[in-house]
Structures are given as structure tokens and as C-alpha cells.
């Protein structure tokens, strides 16, 4: 009987290979990410997106490139299996859907503006606002993982939590956006380059 309990305990700890950070570790990470974000003028990166829906046999995999320019320009571009890009610029979304261009003005919707800001901030990882999120810090081998649960009910209706993984330098390596249904979108970054000059043409519609 005791063996079974040990075995069960082992299994449980194997599943939760992440441990909670101490307060000191958490504030160290926070400082690191914040100072890294402050030093960041541009980010360019490749990404692979995994859309997980519980009833599907496989996640839907799409991939492309991300470009960020301080303070709030983001271009999110899918290359495979379709060509689609969206530029977050001022209070607009500029969409290019396989050559067909359109734009959406968000200024009339406070909610969409907030969601938009969240996406932009999550790219840098700097979301340590305790008025907006319930925040939990974890260690996971060489990386750190921070869970941000939106407090605002209007936002938590769409996103239950952001799980952001940071590498040892404090750069974002993975973002997981979890829906209230527990379906999620996981984005894994690679070839992430900081402060490489990015021309404005990249963000032109």
C-alpha cells in the first residue's frame, strides 16, 4: 500500500515538474524581465502556433514571423499554411488576408483596446501589474513560467490566463493563452533577435 502511495506521489511530482518560486526569486525575475523590456526597442522572431481544441485529434499548427517596435507596433504574420498578417498600430488593426487588405478601428471598444494592449504587452512579457492580474511564479528547469490571471471579469470572459515562459535572460520564449473552456493557443518563439533595426516599411499596410 505504502509503495502505491509513493508511486502516486512520484507520478504527481513528475507531472508538476514546476515548483513555485520564493518571493525573492519572483522579484528577481520580475526585475530582470522589466529591465530587459526597457532595453528592448525591437523584437523579431519566428513563431509556431499550436491551437488546442480538446475534441481534435491534433493541434492546429500554423507558423510565421513576429515583429515588434517600441512602444506599441506589432506585426503578426502567418506564412504557413496560409499567408495572413495583422498589424497592431495606434488604435487600428490592419489585416492583409492573402493580399486582401482591410482594417478595423478599435477606438470605440474599450474591451478590444484592452485585449489589444494585452497582446502587445505579452510579446514583451512585461505584464506584472498586480491591479490587473493575479500572478503566480514557477521554476521549470532552465526556464521560468509566470501565470497571469486577468482580474477584470470582462477580460477573463475571453482569456482565463496567460502562461508566459521566460529563458534565463528574461526573454519570452513561449506564450499560452487559455480560454475559459480550457482550450488554448500556445505560441513558441524561435530565432528571437532583440534590437535589430526594423524599418517602418515592415509596419506599413
Amino acid at each position, binding site marked *: 500500500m505504502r509503495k502505491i502511495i509513493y508511486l502516486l506521489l512520484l507520478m504527481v511530482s513528475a507531472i508538476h515538474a514546476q515548483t513555485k518560486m520564493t518571493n525573492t526569486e519572483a522579484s528577481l525575475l520580475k526585475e530582470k524581465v522589466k529591465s530587459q523590456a526597457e532595453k528592448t526597442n525591437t523584437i523579431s522572431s519566428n513563431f509556431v502556433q499550436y491551437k488546442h481544441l480538446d*475534441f*481534435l*485529434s491534433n493541434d492546429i499548427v500554423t507558423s510565421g514571423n513576429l515583429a515588434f517596435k517600441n512602444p506599441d507596433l506589432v506585426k503578426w504574420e502567418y506564412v504557413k*499554411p*496560409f499567408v495572413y498578417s495583422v498589424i497592431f498600430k495606434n488604435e487600428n488593426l490592419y489585416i492583409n488576408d492573402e493580399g486582401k487588405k482591410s482594417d478595423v478601428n478599435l477606438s470605440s471598444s474599450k474591451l478590444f483596446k484592452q485585449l489589444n494592449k494585452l497582446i502587445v504587452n505579452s510579446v514583451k512579457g512585461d505584464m506584472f501589474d498586480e491591479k490587473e492580474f493575479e500572478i503566480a511564479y514557477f521554476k521549470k528547469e532552465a526556464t521560468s513560467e509566470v501565470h497571469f490571471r486577468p482580474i477584470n471579469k470582462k477580460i477573463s470572459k475571453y482569456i482565463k490566463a496567460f502562461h508566459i515562459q521566460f529563458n534565463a535572460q528574461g526573454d519570452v520564449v513561449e506564450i499560452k493563452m487559455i*480560454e475559459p*473552456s480550457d*482550450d488554448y493557443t500556445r505560441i513558441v518563439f524561435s530565432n528571437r533577435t532583440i534590437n535589430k533595426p526594423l524599418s517602418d516599411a515592415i509596419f506599413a499596410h
Partner: protein
Amino acid sequence: MRYLLISLLFLLAGCASYQQRNNFEIQEVSDEGITNSYFSDVVKDYVYKAKIDVYGKSFGGLFIVKKIAEAHHRVVFTTEMGAKIFDFSFHKDEFKVNYILDEMDKKILLNILERDFRVLVRENEKAISKSIKDNSELFETEIVNKKYYYLINGGRLNKIVRVNNGKEKVVFLFSKISDATAKNIQILHKNIKLAINLKSIN
């Protein structure tokens, strides 16, 4: 008198069935089954890049269909970035909304989507009549009180049409068919400005 004749003729023409209007020859009443096998594989995830044009506005996303079990499908629409817009279940004649964005939660819209996607994913229907023209077969059936025609060319389902008073109301077109999957699907409404375009991406 002449006017009466002309209007009678018009009336008769108006009564011509969908089959007759399209020069199909009606066969005897048949109890043959009709099969739409484009969403029939439980192992497969059906993922389409979708473009929806509605009253001059155009938006895109991912359209996902999964067969859960016999006569049971999940139909989900998300943005390209993965945010869910709607999530429906079809189980036999039952329809359940698992999720829909508040902005889209309107009865009229839901009724249209329910009717369209029910027909899209349904696999087996019983034919009320069968008619033929050259290589094509046209089967008449009824799904939840609406009349539909299934056009089969050389053994392949190419078109489903919802018909009211002999007129096309909604047309489903299946093309680029390979491995029992329709790589291109169009759902075109004739009486409202709504067109759904699906392109398979997996």
C-alpha cells in the same frame, strides 16, 4: 381571356419543380440513401481557412469540423490567432451552442448558421425522389422541414441546394475533391448577402 391564359401559363411555369426547371427527368420514387462523406471520418480533423462575406463586410478565420461519433459533429470558428468565435454541436436533429461571441449572439444569425452547418456535416439522408440528366443524378430530400436537392456527378457530390417554391435559396458547392475531402467549399445565399468560402489547409 388571353390575359387569363398568359397568367395561367405563368402560374404553371411558376409551379414547375426544381428538377423540371433544370431539365432533369424524374424517376420513380426511390428510397435510396444519399451520402455526404466530406465530414465522415472520425479520425480526421477538418480544418479550413474561412472567408465570410456578409453585407459588404469581409472577415476571416479558421473553420474546424470534427466528427465525434455517428451523427454527431462539432463545428468551430476561430480567428487566425486562435480566439473562438463560435462553437456548435450537431447531434442528430439537435443543435447546441457551446460558445458564441456576445456580438454574434443573435437569433436570426444563429438560425442561419445552424441550418447551413447542419446540412454541411450531415452524412445520410433518405431520398424522396430521384431524377437524372446525362451523367448527373439529382436527389430530393427534406432536412428539418426544408427541401434540399443533392446533385451527384459521376458518383461525386458536387452541390447541395436548399429550394423554396422551386427557387434556389442556398447553394453548397464542393470542389477540388480528393481522398473523400472537399478542399474547396462554398456556401452561397441567394436571398441575403452572405457567402462562406472554405479552403482546406490540412
